[in-house]
């Protein structure tokens, strides 16, 4: 499969669904960074910064799925990557198998709206992972962490 098939969604399209021009530019940059990481085979750090805005806009992240898929395919098994920081963009759950295939020692997820499925995937990831040293979770609300309570554990 050609890993460069996916299209970058231009700033104008993000503006059309309510993003400010500044935030729309950030989304375009984010996608360019994703493409860049697909090509950089020797990168040690993946840092993707979106924008921190309302959930109602995050829900349109579906446009990004082809790009995410392309990135996960490219990163899968790339053990040179030690650090992944993702912030301000809704993250597909399918990232966790990719993260598991790396020798990550640093994972930061901030305002990634991973949701209930994402939290379960993160728990599974932590249960099977043996390389991670630093974990930072932020910007996700208490509703996700309620899964930690005994009544949700089984």
């Amino acid at each position, binding site marked *: 499969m050609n890993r460069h098939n996916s299209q970058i969604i231009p700033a104008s399209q993000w503006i059309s669904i309510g993003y400010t021009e500044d935030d729309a530019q950030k989304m375009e940059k984010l996608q360019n960074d994703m493409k860049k990481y697909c090509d950089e085979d020797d990168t040690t750090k993946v840092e993707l910064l979106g924008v921190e805005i309302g959930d109602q806009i995050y829900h349109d992240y579906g446009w990004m799925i082809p790009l995410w898929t392309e990135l996960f395919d490219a990163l899968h098994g790339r053990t040179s990557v030690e650090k992944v920081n993702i912030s301000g963009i809704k993250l597909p759950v399918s990232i966790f198998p990719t993260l598991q295939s790396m020798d990550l020692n640093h994972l930061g997820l901030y305002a990634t709206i991973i949701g209930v499925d994402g939290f379960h995937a993160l728990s599974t990831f*932590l249960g099977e992972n043996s*390389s*991670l040293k630093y*974990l*930072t*979770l932020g910007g996700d609300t208490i509703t996700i*962490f309620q899964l930690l*309570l005994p009544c949700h554990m089984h």
Partner: protein
Amino acid sequence: MSNHPSLESVAFINCALTNTDILRVILEGCATINNVKIEANKLESEAVAIISDFIQSNPPPTPTEYMNLRHNSISDDDTLLLASSLKNNTHLRLVNLAHNDITEEGEKLLFKTMYDPTSMDSIVESNHTCVIHAWDFTGKESLVQRSNPVEAEVMKINADHDISTKQKIRRKVVLALCGFEGELFDLAHFNDLPLPIMPRVLELIQEHSQIRTHCHLKGLYDENQLEKDALSRLFHTLRGWELPLLFENLHSPPPIKTGGRSH
């Protein structure tokens, strides 16, 4: 998380962790994590009670050493509980409480956890391993600029992990005997001081402290009170003389030499 083989640091930032049941489960999972950060979660009194339990019961072999609780809503009243739990913890090296609702009153209470010169016993029972910050020491004001000399010295003593608890207590005792601000000498000199000459050294310090305090404060305080304070310090020192923690290598006193013969 507690079973993870390599995880050293976990941070929950801006996660609205105000539910105490959730916080308790999270902290249980962090019991073996070296560095725990719970920042910007609006933690209040109920949450502090859970955190205090965690601090007090955090067991070896791999207990938490660093706790970052910056940018929460911890108040002066909460510091009482935190201080109490910190007195029973010998593993934590740093607790950062910057950017909470802690005023100078709370700061003083927390400082007393590390150094309480009220009596010899209170010095011994202080926390000797943890540095507690209630202000942002990474900002413009450095630790030394922010603290008075005694605070800075106590922080230095607690942060020094190359000396034993007994040596730390010895330094704090000497610090308490100095008893006034400014011109602190290097307390590290006392680390290897031979035990037999220590009483004389403490006596001289006491005299020095008394004279200097007297000169420094003449006219401001009652002279009899100053003398009482000085005697009180000496009394507490002597009363605690038998404490095994005070001096390391405490052996029988050396034989008294009389005319070249030992008895």
